[in-house]
């Protein structure tokens, strides 16, 4: 029995207040500041002016911006979609119906990378990819020459780092989705002498499609905002070679002090996030 409560707004007050001040207001500010020349240094610091779409015009003419968008896409596709979502699915699939202890050990190792804070992941990975690091050491056993991974293949390094950190989440989502598939369905297919690949393609994947879509949206949104890992591993460099949108935004706002421009980039980021969020909500088929 649900009733109407006259005082329920009192219960909602603290959260509405907090969300308003720290969530809604910043989003509104983003929209306002993106159309100004706000800066901490230079002539613009003295006179704050409305500049219309100037920031956006500059942005789309800025080769650094365009390449940041491109890098963000590369980072998203390789570290989120192919890396975490696919590797997570493969791990969950392979671990199905394996020895319980074996499963648990592999699970703990993968999850450990997920539980580890981003900044520690960055430290581990910088050491792993460094000139005298573990990766070159192991490649050396096979006679390969050492490679300066962080210098020559910085994008590959940060993508691998993000996969290492994030895959466990997808793996866990898929594990519980796979556990929910009734055994009879697959058994029937085996009797009909379907191959393992056929079962995965025609039975398993369609049955966990919902989880795949929802997880893919979540992982994409999460990866879109990744700042710490890239910033602490490479600082966006060498040069600008790992400068994704969040790093570009940070550099414009907090290194060059071009707040107006920085906010305009935030707005683009926010816009991409909003589109992805809407897709995400649709994919969940929420009933409230």
């Amino acid at each position, binding site marked *: 029995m*649900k*009733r109407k*409560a006259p*005082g*329920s*707004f009192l*219960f909602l007050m*603290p*959260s509405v207040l*907090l*969300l308003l*001040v*720290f969530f809604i207001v*910043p*989003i509104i*500010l983003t929209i306002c*500041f993106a159309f100004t020349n*706000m800066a901490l240094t230079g002539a613009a610091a003295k006179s704050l002016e409305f500049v219309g779409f100037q920031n956006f015009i500059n942005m789309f003419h800025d080769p650094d911006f365009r390449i940041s968008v491109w890098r963000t896409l590369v980072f998203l596709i390789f570290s989120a979609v192919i890396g975490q979502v696919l590797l997570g699915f493969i*791990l969950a699939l392979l671990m199905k119906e*394996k020895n319980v202890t074996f499963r648990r050990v*592999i699970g703990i*190792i993968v999850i*450990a*990378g997920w*539980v580890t*804070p981003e*900044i520690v*992941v960055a430290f581990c990975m*910088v*050491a*792993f990819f460094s000139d*005298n690091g*573990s990766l070159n050491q192991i490649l050396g056993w096979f006679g390969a020459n050492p490679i300066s991974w962080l210098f020559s293949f910085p994008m590959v390094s940060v993508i691998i780092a993000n996969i*290492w950190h994030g895959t466990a989440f997808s793996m*866990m989502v898929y594990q519980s989705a796979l556990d929910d598939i009734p055994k009879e369905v697959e058994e029937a297919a085996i009797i009909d002498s379907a191959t*393992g690949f056929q079962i995965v393609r025609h039975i398993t994947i369609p049955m966990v499609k919902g*989880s795949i879509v929802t997880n893919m949206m*979540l992982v994409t*949104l999460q990866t*879109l*905002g*990744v*700042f*710490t890992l890239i*910033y602490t591993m490479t600082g966006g460099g060498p040069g600008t070679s790992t400068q994704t949108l969040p790093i570009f935004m*940070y550099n414009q*706002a*907090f290194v060059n002090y071009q707040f107006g421009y*920085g*906010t305009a980039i*935030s707005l683009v*980021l*926010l816009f991409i*996030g909003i589109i992805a*969020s809407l897709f*995400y*909500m649709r994919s*969940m088929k*929420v009933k*409230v």
Partner: protein
Amino acid sequence: MVKHGLQRKIQYGILVFLGLCFLLPLLWIILASFDPNAQQGIKMPSTWTIQNFKDVLGDSSNLRSFGVGLILSGGQAILVVVVSVLAAYPLSRYEMRFKKSFLLSILFMTALPITAVMVPVFQMFLFFKMQNSIIATMLFLTASSLPYGIWMMKNFMDSVPIDLEESAWIDGASVWNGLRRIVAPLMLPGIATIAIFTFSGSWGNFFVPYILLQTPEKLPASVTIYQFFGSHGMVEYGRLAAFSLLYTMPSVVLYIFSQRYMSKGFSMGGATKG
């Protein structure tokens, strides 16, 4: 079934390989932390020592950075729990005009990347002279994890039957007492899960304190670690590894704790049932 057996062996082989790939960076940090002469490459320490840990824990500025982290994340976790229990109560128990749109906006906010609002948040902090304030930073962190907290809390609260409260009301208890004495205790697993999630999320957060806090005494461990290996060059690998391991420990311990409650959380069923 020879073919089937071979297939299984290949699958085990792939899993072992993937497991090793995931293990290597972790193993390095563990070995390095006990090695007096740790290097960037992975190696067995020739002698084992706990001196690295002693050095880290003997340094008062390190301890302070752990303390700041504890205040930030702990305060945030408590605030998120209290505020979201309050918000979830009418959302779960009463009919309200804007309930549906409120819940949908909350869900929408859970998915927005917080990175995108950092620039205006910094400007806001500058404008209100809140930069370098631990309290203000904690409040911002609270707000950033509130949408998720409210959403989860409402789902947990929906599973507590309303009959129990109704009988308490008949016995003369107020709504507030019903929430405090009957609903909240029954929801302890849910509350613990949300508190743990919030704490771990913010304990590992580098970006927010890095932007909003300035003076070295106010920086939490996440930022201090970066200053170690970011600007001073990576010299003391062993000590840095020990620091990182100590810093990772709370997240690991809390994760193990939350396992008990979380096993069902990953099916995402809870989130879809609204």
